[in-house]
């Protein structure tokens, strides 16, 4: 059926044979071209094109992971991360007129010129305008709808208990990494690991399919600390009022659970607000109870005496000749505030006699005394894992001269931190067992190291209970309804290697004596009022904290309620 031919036979006749060949050739070339192109796209360039194609709908999105929460032992939140928005700009994309810039500056509380310079700094692709905005400001920025200005979700950490727990918890930096305190110590556990995920999005931006997770995200773990927020508050309140009352530089209180070594409270005054720690000096940030060393003074005496009783050199009622208050060793005089001729070992503790303690120490070999102090945890870490913990110094006994051994007996020439001191007193609260310190809540009590025998510990407990009775150095430490025991300390501060007339007043004790539940250590740095003795400045803090904390913990009374015996006008002072 040759229609063409029938329509125009002459035309057909004129067609030369080469035209078919040319046409065939052209088709062949075309086909080769197409085939080649196909090979090029499908084979050689496949990966690149596939990627480009995927990029149209497949996206890798970041899966954020928030930082874990810190809570106290009863589950009260202490540090919580919550998302906030930060405003950022991409300068090359910014399109804003003067009015908009002015408004934006107003919302962000920034200088218009500064904002302008940031918005049009085309050398950068990303510039923060303001980080961590409150939600109402965020809404206004969104309402302004300036092209090139966007929001970025970040996490910000809040500390509801504020300055009461500031130095203990520490804080995090802009990027939610721990920088101080427990936030730093627990960084590894608290920090979440952001992950990424490949997803397929449709044209409206909805994620329509999960195309596999590249790195799974891992939120940070929540951690329960050993602190008890109520006791922490009591401790902070009392240390604050004592520091104010005595015009002191600073103060710290440590409350330990006597059975487990858990830290129930760790308060420092003055504090700072961790929710806004912009320009706080590092001095304020330091946790004095852990990072600062001081010469403990008389709070060391119980350990000297315990070592002596343990080795059998003396008993609680052994008489010590206290030389009417002056005793010379290596041409240096050791003084007592109370010129007694003879005291029992118990009275040496009760009245805090330096001469007595020195004499007892000199009965011992230096190695023995060193061992006793070292076993009590002095000169070593407490196990709290707190960043910046100072372990204190306990010199090699081979280098001790007799005068040094004598002064060491009453806490000079040795440096400790308050936590260490509190920990050492768990020995007396715990039938001779030294407990490791924990800032995390423990599920089961840990067994500590037995340092002194039950017999020695019982003797020391009795002596330390005498301290708070009239005739002792700390009648102000008494608590109505509970038997308490402890030891005062007053020490000259060291400045550039010299003792100066500034003091550190301290008191360490435990209660109730019948079954000790709490160990409380109080340290007041440089009280510059009329009173500066441990028994006058630190003991009342101890009394108030212990009384309130025992009530808080529902500990039944172990003494009649009228047990507080009013101290005589002049309380027994210790020589410093």
């Amino acid at each position: 059926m040759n229609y063409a031919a029938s329509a125009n036979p002459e035309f057909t006749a004129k067609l030369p044979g080469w035209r078919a060949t040319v046409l065939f050739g052209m088709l062949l070339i075309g086909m080769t071209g197409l085939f080649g192109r196909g090979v090029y796209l499908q084979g050689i360039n496949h990966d690149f094109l596939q990627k480009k194609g995927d990029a149209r709908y497949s996206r890798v999105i970041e899966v954020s992971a928030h930082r874990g929460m810190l809570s106290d032992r009863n589950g009260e939140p202490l540090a919580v991360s919550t998302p906030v928005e930060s405003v950022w700009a991409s300068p090359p994309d910014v399109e804003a007129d003067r009015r908009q810039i002015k408004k934006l500056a107003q919302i962000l509380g920034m200088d218009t010129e500064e904002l302008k310079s940031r918005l049009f700094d085309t050398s950068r692709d990303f510039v923060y305008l303001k980080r961590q905005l409150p939600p109402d400001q965020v809404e206004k920025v969104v309402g302004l709808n300036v092209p090139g200005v966007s929001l970025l979700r970040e996490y910000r950490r809040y500390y509801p208990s504020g300055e009461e727990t500031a130095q203990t918890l520490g804080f995090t930096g802009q990027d939610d990494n721990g920088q101080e305190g427990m936030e730093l110590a627990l960084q590894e556990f608290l920090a979440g690991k952001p992950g990424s995920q490949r997803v397929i999005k449709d044209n409206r931006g909805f994620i329509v399919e999960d195309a596999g997770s590249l790195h799974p995200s891992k939120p940070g773990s929540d951690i329960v600390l050993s602190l008890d927020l109520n006791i922490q508050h009591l401790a902070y309140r009392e240390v604050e009022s004592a520091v104010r009352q005595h015009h002191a530089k600073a103060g710290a209180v440590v409350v330990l659970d006597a059975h487990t070594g858990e830290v129930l409270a760790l308060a420092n005054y003055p504090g700072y607000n961790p929710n806004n720690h912009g320009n706080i000096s590092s001095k304020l940030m330091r946790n004095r109870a852990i990072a600062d060393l001081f010469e403990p003074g008389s709070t060391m005496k119980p350990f000297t005496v315990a070592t002596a009783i343990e080795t059998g050199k003396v008993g609680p009622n052994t008489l010590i000749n206290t030389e009417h208050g002056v005793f010379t060793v290596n041409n240096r005089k050791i003084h007592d505030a109370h010129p007694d001729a003879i005291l029992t070992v118990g009275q040496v503790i009760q009245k805090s006699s330096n001469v007595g303690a020195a004499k007892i120490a000199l009965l011992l070999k230096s190695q023995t005394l060193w061992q006793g102090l070292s076993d009590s945890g002095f000169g070593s870490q407490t196990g709290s894992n707190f960043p910046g913990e100072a372990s204190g110094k306990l010199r090699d006994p081979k280098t001790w001269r007799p005068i040094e051994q004598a002064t060491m007996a009453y806490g000079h020439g040795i440096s400790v931190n308050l936590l260490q001191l509190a920990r050492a007193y768990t020995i007396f609260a715990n039938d001779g067992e030294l407990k490791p310190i924990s800032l995390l809540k423990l599920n089961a009590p840990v067994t500590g190291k037995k340092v002194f025998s039950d017999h020695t510990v019982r003797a020391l407990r009795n002596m330390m209970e005498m301290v708070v009775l009239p005739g002792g150095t700390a009648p102000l430490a008494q608590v109505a309804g509970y038997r308490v025991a402890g030891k005062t300390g007053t020490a000259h501060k060291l400045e550039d290697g010299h003792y100066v007339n500034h003091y550190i007043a301290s008191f360490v004790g435990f209660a109730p004596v019948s079954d000790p539940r709490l160990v409380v250590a109080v340290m007041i740095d440089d009280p510059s009022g009329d009173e500066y003795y441990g028994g006058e400045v630190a003991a009342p803090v101890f009394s108030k904290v212990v009384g309130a904390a025992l009530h808080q913990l529902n500990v039944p009374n172990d003494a009649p309620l009228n047990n507080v015996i009013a101290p005589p006008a002049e309380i027994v002072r210790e020589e410093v």
Partner: protein
Amino acid sequence: MKGSFLGLCNFVLGKVEGFSRAHTLLLLVAVVLCALSVVTSQHKARKLFIELQKEKEFAQQMEVEWGQLRLEQSTWATPARVEMIAGKQLQMQLPKNGQVQFIRANPEGATQQQ
């Protein structure tokens, strides 16, 4: 068109022993149905996934809100604030010594309560 396609099918399957035209047709229908159901289930899956994604987002939002509410609650309930309000506004005071009675059901129970 259909004929030529069937022809192609026959060309592919025809060599298999015992396959009649009817069999081929049946298989063809099955294949088409499967293909369509793949498309529909993919569509359904995506729809459900979008829903899941929305719910997840909602859950996350709720979690954030929960965190914020806890934060708010604990900020209002700090011991310092409670103490101040109790003392100043409500004129409350701590029970004095002697006003507190400790009740011990039995020695065991008492120690447990502590």
